[in-house]
C-alpha cells in the first residue's frame, strides 16, 4: 500500500509547492499559498517516513525535534533581523544538501555510476560553497564581520583558481569515484571558495548576493534529486533555483550591473579617484520645527526609506509620522527602491510590520510618477538610490542605475546621521542642492521629534 501512497504523496506535494508560489504572487491569496506549501511539506515528510527503506525511527525523531527546537526561535526573530536570518537559513539548506551528498557518497562510492556521481559532485560543490558563503553573508549582515568589501590584488584570479581546482577534483571523482581521497579535498576547496567569494562583497550588494545564494541552495537540492532519482526534489529545488535567479536578475537590473560585476567588481570601496567627487558646497540644515511646519502644510509627502531606517529601527516612528500627517489631511506614500535595504523586499516587510497599509508602498516607477507633484520628499536613511548623479554623471559609479527621482520634489528633506557617504562610498549631490534641507541625527530620534512638532503645528 505504501508503494502507491508514497509516489502519490510526492506528486501532490509537487503540485502544492507550485500552487504555493502561484498564490504568493499577491497579498490577498498569499496566506493560502503559505498553507498549501505547508501541506505539501507535510505530505512529503509523511510519505517519506512510511518508506520501507527506513528501518529505525529513533535517530530521525531526535533530529526532527532538534531541528524544530532551533527552527522555531529562528522564525520569531524581529523583522529587522530578517536579512541575517535568511542568510542563515540558506546556510542550513545548503549544509543539508552537502551532508546528504557526502553520506550518499560514503555508501555508494564503490558502485556508483558516472551520471549519479556527477550529480553528487554538483550537489556537494554547490552545497559546500553556498554553506560557507551564506555564513559569511550572515556574519557581515549581523556585523560580526566588517561590512566593507575587502580586496587585494589578484583576488579574482585566486578565487577562480580555487574553484577551478575544486571542479577538477570533482571531474576526477566522476572519472573514478573510488578515488576517495579527492572527495574531502574537494569539499574543503568549495568551502574555502565560498568564504573568498563573499570577502569582497559590500553591504550594497547584499540583496543580489542573498538572492544568488537562494538560487544555489535550491539548485543543490535539485542536484540531490538527480542523484537520488527523486522527481519531487528536482521540482522543489528548481522552483527555488528559479526564484533566486529571478530575484537576483531584478536586483542586478535595479543597480544597472551584471552578475559578474556584482560578484567580482567589489562595489562599495571608497573611491580614491576624481569620479563622483562633488566640490565642498555648503549644505543647508534645518531644525525639526522648520521641517515639521513644511510637512504639516504639504498636500503630498513621499517618504523614501532605506537601510538607515532599518538600522535605527525607526519604522514604527515613521508609521506614527504617516498617521499624524494623514490626520492633518496630508497624503503620504512610500517610495520603495528594489535594492533599498539588505535583501529584496526588506523595506516592505519592515513597514508592514509597523502597520503601514501595503497600498501606501509604491514601487519605484509608480513613485517617480508622483514625485514631481510631491511637496516634500523625505529621505530616511537611503542614499545611493536617490543620487541624481546616476542620471547624468557618466563618471559616477552609480551612473545608469535607476533611481527614485527625489530631486524632482519641491522640497527634499534628508534625515542622516552625518555627511558620511553611503555604501557605494560616493558623495550624493542631492545634499548640496538648493531645495534640500538636511536633518542631522539618528533616524528614530529625528522622526520622533517630527511627529511631536507636526502634531503641535497648526
Amino acid at each position: 500500500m505504501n508503494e502507491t501512497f508514497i509516489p502519490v504523496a510526492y506528486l501532490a506535494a509537487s503540485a502544492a509547492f507550485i500552487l504555493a508560489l502561484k498564490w504568493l504572487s499577491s497579498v490577498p491569496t498569499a496566506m493560502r499559498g503559505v498553507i498549501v506549501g505547508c501541506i505539501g511539506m507535510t505530505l512529503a515528510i509523511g510519505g517519506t517516513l512510511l518508506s520501507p527503506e527506513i528501518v529505525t525511527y529513533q535517530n530521525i525523531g531526535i533530529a526532527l525535534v532538534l531541528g524544530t527546537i532551533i527552527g522555531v526561535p529562528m522564525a520569531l526573530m524581529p523583522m529587522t533581523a530578517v536579512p541575517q536570518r535568511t542568510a542563515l537559513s540558506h546556510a542550513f539548506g545548503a549544509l543539508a544538501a552537502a551532508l546528504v551528498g557526502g553520506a550518499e557518497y560514503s555508501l555508494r562510492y564503490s558502485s556508483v555510476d558516472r551520471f549519479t556521481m556527477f550529480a553528487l559532485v554538483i550537489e556537494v560543490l554547490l552545497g559546500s560553497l553556498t554553506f560557507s558563503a551564506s555564513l559569511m553573508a550572515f556574519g557581515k549582515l549581523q556585523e560580526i564581520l566588517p561590512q566593507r568589501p575587502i580586496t587585494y590584488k589578484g583576488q579574482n584570479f585566486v578565487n577562480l583558481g580555487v574553484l577551478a581546482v575544486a571542479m577538477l577534483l570533482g571531474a576526477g571523482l566522476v572519472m573514478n569515484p573510488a578515488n576517495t581521497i579527492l572527495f574531502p579535498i574537494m569539499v574543503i576547496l568549495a568551502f574555502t571558495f565560498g568564504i573568498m567569494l563573499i570577502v569582497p562583497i559590500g553591504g550594497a550588494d547584499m540583496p543580489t548576493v542573498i538572492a544568488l545564494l537562494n538560487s544555489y541552495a535550491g539548485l543543490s537540492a535539485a542536484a540531490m534529486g538527480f542523484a537520488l532519482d527523486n522527481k519531487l526534489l528536482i521540482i522543489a529545488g528548481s522552483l527555488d533555483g528559479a526564484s533566486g535567479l529571478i530575484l537576483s536578475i531584478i536586483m542586478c537590473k535595479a543597480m544597472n550591473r551584471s552578475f559578474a560585476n556584482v560578484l567580482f567588481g567589489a562595489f562599495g570601496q571608497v573611491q580614491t579617484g576624481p569620479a563622483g567627487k562633488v566640490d565642498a558646497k555648503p549644505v543647508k540644515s534645518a531644525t525639526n520645527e522648520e521641517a515639521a511646519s513644511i510637512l504639516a502644510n504639504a498636500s503630498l509627502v513621499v517618504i523614501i526609506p532605506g537601510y538607515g531606517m532599518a538600522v535605527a529601527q525607526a519604522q514604527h516612528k515613521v508609521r506614527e509620522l504617516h498617521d499624524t500627517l494623514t490626520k492633518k489631511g496630508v497624503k503620504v506614500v512610500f517610495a520603495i527602491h528594489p535594492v533599498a535595504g539588505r535583501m529584496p523586499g526588506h523595506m516592505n516587510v519592515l513597514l508592514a510590520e509597523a502597520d503601514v497599509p501595503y497600498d501606501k508602498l509604491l514601487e519605484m516607477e509608480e513613485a517617480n510618477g508622483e514625485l514631481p507633484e510631491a511637496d516634500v520628499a523625505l529621505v530616511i536613511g537611503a542614499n545611493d538610490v536617490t543620487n541624481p548623479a546616476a542620471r547624468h554623471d557618466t563618471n559616477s559609479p552609480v551612473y545608469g542605475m535607476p533611481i527614485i527621482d527625489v530631486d524632482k520634489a519641491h522640497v527634499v528633506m534628508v534625515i542622516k546621521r552625518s555627511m558620511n557617504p553611503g555604501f557605494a562610498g560616493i558623495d550624493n549631490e542631492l545634499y548640496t542642492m538648493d531645495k534640500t534641507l538636511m536633518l542631522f541625527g539618528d533616524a528614530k530620534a529625528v522622526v520622533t521629534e517630527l511627529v511631536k512638532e507636526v502634531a503641535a503645528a497648526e
Partner: protein
Amino acid sequence: MTHAPDLLSSLYVFLLATFVGLEVIKRVSPLLHTPLMSLTNAISAISIVGALIITGKAETPLSTMLGMAAVTASMINVTGGYLITFRMIKMFKRKGAAK
C-alpha cells in the same frame, strides 16, 4: 545501486519545473519578495526527504551521523521557514484594516 537513474526523464522534469518556476515567480509582487524568499527557502528544505532516508536506513555510523545532521538542518528550515513566512504575510494589511 548500479543501474543509472532515468536521466532523460529527470532532465525533462528539471527543465519544465524551472520554466514553471520562472513564469510563476515573475508574477510575484515586489511587495512580497522577502516572504517569497523565505517560502522558497522552506520549500527547498525538501532535501529533508533524502536526509530522512539516509538516517532511517542506518547503514553505517558515518552515513547515519551525516544524515541526522542533515535532517536537523532541513527541519530548521521547514519549521522556521513556514513560520516566519506566515508571520510576514499576516503583517500585510490594507488601509482601514490596520490596527
